[in-house]
C-alpha cells in the first residue's frame, strides 16, 4: 500500500507542476504547452500505475470508497483533458482553469481515507465497467466545456482578457464548449441507460428514483435544457458558459456528493 500511495502522491505532484506551469505560462505570457502536457502525461502514467497496484492488491477496481471514486475520476478527467489538450490547440490555455478544479479534487483525495471496503456483490458485473466508463467520459467532456466556459468568464476582467488574448473569440470558444456539452449529453444518456440495465439485473428494477438515479437524471435534464436554451434564445457566450458551470456543478455534486451523503445511494446496493 505504501508504494501505491507514494506513486499516487508523485502523480499528484506532477499534476500540480503541470497546472502551475499552465498558470505561470499564462500569467507570464510564455508558451509552456509541451511542459504542461509532459507533466500531465507523466502524472497520468504514474496515476495509472498507482491505480493498477491498488487493483492488483485488492482484487477489485476503484469503484466503492470516496478515495477510490475521487482517484479514478481524477484519472479519467485528466485523460479526457489531456487528449483534448493534445488534439485541440484552442483548449490548451484552459488548463489554467481546468487544473485548479482538479486540484480541489486532489486536495479532497489527500484528505480522504485510502482504506478498502468490501466490494458489493451487485458490483460483480460487466455493466459496472460500462456504466462507470460512460459516466467518466460524460464528466470529462463537461470538464473540457467548463474549461472553455472559464476562459470566457475570465475574459470579462481586464487581466483575464490579456491572459487569453491569443485564443479564438468568445463565440468560437462557446461553440467548442457547446460541442463538448453535446458529447456530454450523449454519454450521460448512455450512462443512464447502462445504469438502468445494471439495476434491472442487480436489483430487479431498472429505475427506482434513488438518490443517484434522480440526481443523474436531473443533471441530464439540466444539460438538455442548457442546449435547448442556447438554441431558443441564442444565448451570449457569457450566459452559455454560466450554464456550462451550472451543469458541471450539478454533475460534480451528483458524482461526489450524493453517494457520500446518502445512506443508500442505490437502493439495495449494499
Amino acid at each position: 500500500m505504501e508504494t501505491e500511495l507514494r506513486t499516487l502522491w508523485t502523480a499528484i505532484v506532477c499534476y500540480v507542476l503541470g497546472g502551475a506551469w499552465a498558470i505561470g505560462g499564462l500569467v507570464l505570457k510564455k508558451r509552456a504547452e509541451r511542459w504542461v502536457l509532459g507533466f500531465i502525461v507523466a502524472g497520468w502514467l504514474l496515476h495509472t500505475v498507482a491505480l493498477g497496484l491498488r487493483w492488483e492488491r485488492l482484487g477489485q477496481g476503484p469503484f466503492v470508497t470516496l478515495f477510490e471514486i475521487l482517484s479514478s475520476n481524477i484519472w479519467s478527467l485528466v485523460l479526457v483533458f489531456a487528449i483534448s489538450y493534445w488534439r485541440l490547440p484552442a483548449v490548451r490555455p484552459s488548463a489554467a482553469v481546468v487544473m485548479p478544479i482538479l486540484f480541489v479534487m486532489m486536495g479532497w483525495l489527500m484528505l480522504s481515507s485510502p482504506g478498502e471496503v468490501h466490494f458489493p456483490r451487485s458490483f460483480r458485473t460487466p455493466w459496472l465497467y460500462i456504466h462507470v466508463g460512460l459516466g467518466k467520459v460524460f464528466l470529462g467532456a463537461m470538464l473540457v466545456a467548463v474549461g472553455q466556459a472559464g476562459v470566457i468568464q475570465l475574459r470579462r476582467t481586464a487581466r483575464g482578457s490579456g491572459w487569453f488574448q491569443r485564443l479564438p473569440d468568445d463565440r468560437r470558444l462557446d461553440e467548442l464548449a457547446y460541442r463538448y456539452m453535446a458529447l456530454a449529453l450523449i454519454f450521460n444518456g448512455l450512462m443512464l441507460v447502462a445504469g438502468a440495465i445494471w439495476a434491472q439485473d442487480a436489483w430487479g428494477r431498472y429505475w427506482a428514483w434513488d438518490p443517484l438515479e434522480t440526481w443523474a437524471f436531473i443533471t441530464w435534464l439540466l444539460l438538455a435544457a442548457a442546449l435547448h436554451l442556447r438554441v431558443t434564445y441564442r444565448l451570449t457566450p457569457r450566459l452559455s458558459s454560466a450554464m456550462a458551470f451550472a451543469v458541471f456543478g450539478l454533475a460534480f455534486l451528483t458524482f461526489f456528493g450524493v453517494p457520500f451523503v446518502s445512506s443508500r445511494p442505490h437502493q439495495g446496493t449494499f
Partner: protein
Amino acid sequence: MDELLSLPQRLLRAAASLKLTLLGLLLLGITTVLVYTRQESATPWLAGPLLLLALNLVAAVASNKVFRRQLPLLVFHLALIVLVLLAAIGRLTYLKGQAELTEGAAFQGLTVREAGPLHSGALEQLHFIHEGFDIRYLPGPVLDSNQARLRWEDTQGRMQSGTIEPNQPLVLRGYRIYPTSNKGFAPVFVWQAHQREPLLLSVHLPSYPANALSQAQTWQPPGASEALWVLLPVAADLIPADRPSRFALPKEQRLVLRRGDKRYEMQPGERLELGDGTLAYRGLSTWMGYRVFYDWTIPWMLAACAVALTSMGLHFWRKFGDQPWQASSA
C-alpha cells in the same frame, strides 16, 4: 406574418415552441425533485410534464421544417416519444412482488404484489421450486455472495434446474425472478387439528442475521383456537465475525413455544398435544425471499434508447463538421 396564419396553424406553432420545451423540461425537473423529496409514486407527478413535452414534440415534428431536413434529429425526438409511450404502457402492465419460499417448496403466489391496472401476465403459470441456497459471508460479517438453487418448468413443460443470483435472475414467461438477501430459518411442523387431515407447514422466522436477536414468530395453525409463539434460540456466533463463513442451520434446533401462559420446548421429532390438535416438529429448514418483476416493455425501451442516442450522436456528428476555432488558434 403570424396574422396571415389560421387559428389552428397559430396554435400548432405555439404548441411547437422551443420555449414550451424549456417549460416542459423545467416542470419535469421540478416534479422529479418533488418525487424524490416526497418519496411518492412518480407516475402521477411526471405524467403532466411528459405529456406536455410529448405534445410539444409532436407539434414541432409536424410544423418545424428543421425536423424534415435533419432526419437524425427527427428520429431522436421520435424515439423519445416512443420511450415515453413505452414507459406509460409499462406502468399500466407491470408487476412487481415478493414471495417467500421454504426449502423444497413450490411457488404458489406472491405475498406482496404491486401491478399496473392492465397487468394480464401469466403469474399463475409460473412453476418453480426453491431448492435451497448458498450464502457466503466475509469477516464482519458482510454478505459476499447469494445464490439460490431453483427447479422450474420451462415454456415447453420440461423441468430445468439452475442457480440464480442477484445479477443473474431466472427469466420465465417474461417474469424475472431474483433471490434477495431476505432469508432465515423455518421450523417445519406437521399440524393435525382434531378430525382433520394432517398438514405440513413451516413458520418463517424473521430474516437472519438481520434480526438475529429476535428469532421468534407468532403463528396460528389452521383450525387452532389460539396462536402459538415460536422462538428459535440461536447462538451468537452462528455467523462468525472474524472469519469467512456460510449460512448454515444451527446444530441446536430446540424450539421454545408459548401458548397463553404455557411454555413448551420441542426438539426435532417431538410431538405436542395442544388440546385442539397435535403439533409435530419435523425439523429446522430455511426460507428465502424472492423478488418477481414483470415489464414486457423493457427490451423495447432499450431499443428506443439505443435508437435515440445513436441518432443524437449522428445528428451532432453531421452538425459539427466545421471547426471554427481552429482557424485563429494556431
